[in-house]
């Protein structure tokens, strides 16, 4: 298992896997299968995938603990950056086709529409995380501070869930499901922290492994 997790090929394969939703959209675009409303289709798809990648990123630590596989951390940064990539496409679609880059219209939307406000907040919080995702930045910030900063991802993900929940008209199954997964992943952390608090001198959690 360790061998597989350590292999550079595993990482490359995962990279390609993370691109599958993009390839899927491109392929649908070329074959004219983006529905009668392609802009909306791409917005929804990239929004979904950004949220999914955030949740996958958040599940790395619990999985690592449960299965005692510290090497899983190797993939966390890439997963998080894919969440950022999909949210960027999501934003670009919105700015281009929904608002035509009209700053007043965008401003009005952000301040007037709660689901846009919370979505924007989540997206802005992802920005410092993407910027400080490199090993050099971890060193510059120091692991403790870096880790504190990157706890923002809990709130980014929650913002994404609320953004989705406030958008749907009546069928809340999907946002409710994502919200449930988020709550489970947070519950795991709360338990982890409280247990750590009672135990003396636990092993420090690895922030980033050299890859």
């Amino acid at each position, binding site marked *: 298992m360790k061998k597989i997790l350590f292999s550079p090929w595993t990482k490359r394969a995962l990279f390609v896997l993370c691109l599958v939703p993009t390839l899927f959209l491109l392929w649908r675009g070329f074959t004219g*299968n983006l529905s009668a409303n392609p802009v909306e289709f791409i917005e929804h798809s990239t929004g979904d995938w950004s949220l999914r990648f955030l949740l996958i990123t958040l599940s790395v630590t619990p999985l690592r603990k449960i299965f005692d596989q510290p090497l899983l951390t190797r993939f966390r940064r890439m997963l998080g950056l894919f969440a950022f990539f999909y949210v960027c496409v999501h934003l670009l679609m919105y700015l281009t086709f929904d608002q035509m880059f009209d700053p007043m219209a965008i401003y009005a939307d952000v301040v007037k529409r709660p689901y846009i406000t919370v979505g924007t907040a989540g997206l802005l919080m992802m920005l410092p995380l993407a910027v400080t995702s490199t090993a050099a930045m971890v060193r510059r910030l120091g692991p403790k501070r870096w880790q504190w900063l990157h706890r923002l991802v809990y709130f980014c993900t929650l913002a994404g869930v609320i953004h989705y929940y406030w958008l749907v008209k009546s*069928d809340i199954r999907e946002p409710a499901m994502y919200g449930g997964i988020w709550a489970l992943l947070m519950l795991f952390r709360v338990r982890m922290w409280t247990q750590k608090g009672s135990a003396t001198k636990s092993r420090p959690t690895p922030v980033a492994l050299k890859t």
Partner: protein
Amino acid sequence: MLIRKPADLRYSDVTPRQLYVNRRRFLAAGSAALGAWTLPTPAKAAGVKIANVVKSNYKVDEKMNSYEDATTYNNYYEFGTDKAEPARNANTLKPSPWQIVVGGLVNKPKTFDLDAIMKLAPLEERVYRHRCVEAWSIVVPWIGYSLANLLKQVDPKSNAKYVAFETLFDRKQMPLWGRAGIELPYVEGLRLDEAMHPLTLLSVGLYGEMLPNQNGAPVRLVVPWKYGFKGIKSIVKITLTDELPPTTWHATNAREYGFYSNVNPTVDHPRWSQGTERRLGELFKRKTLMFNGYTDQVASLYTGLDLKKFY
């Protein structure tokens, strides 16, 4: 990559029917060959051509959307809440035999079967703009006649003020009903003068054919100056009343959906702007028109009514 191929051939007088049909077959065959594993083939159109349809003067001077746009991008929550779902799932609906029970405050209550509906008045083709509350729009050639024709046959009593409509609700034909997240059966309503307005269409078809199931077969309402959800689908019951009838989306969320729900770019949905809309087939948004562009015909219905209050 993002640009969807525009419909190069549209249904129109000048396009021979055969060509039009072949284009769809060609596209269907192509997409089946290319992507059978990703996109389930959309439900086949009812495909039954309607004879003796007369052209109507109710015709907007705008480019019509394609048949695919109108029949693969639908809101019909009884068959799934995603736009593509009704086209895939509505094949469980049985539009024949069908009956509409018309009663309430009328002198001649009557039950119409589908045959009677089809023959009640000359069928017209009307090209209307259709604006969804979700800020997208489409131009569709509907087939039907003014609802007034039917209402006159039952002779409304003088105290009738409203018309209530009800969609079929059958758990067997609508196995996904539990996912809708709205109370069923779907109900809608109009003021009697709105219902009697010549623009209010009782529709049995589109693009020269009987309504496909996902579009509300076999009989639906089309009220072009109101948001699309007022156009109740698969109608089984019409009742005249003297009280404001309950309407499904208003019952679901009164702050967001009013009884009137006239298209109004100056009254936003609490969660999004109604000032602009995306016409299906276009990438950028366009300005939404007051009463969806039907101000000349319908504004007089609302003189003295505060449209911000009665949204």
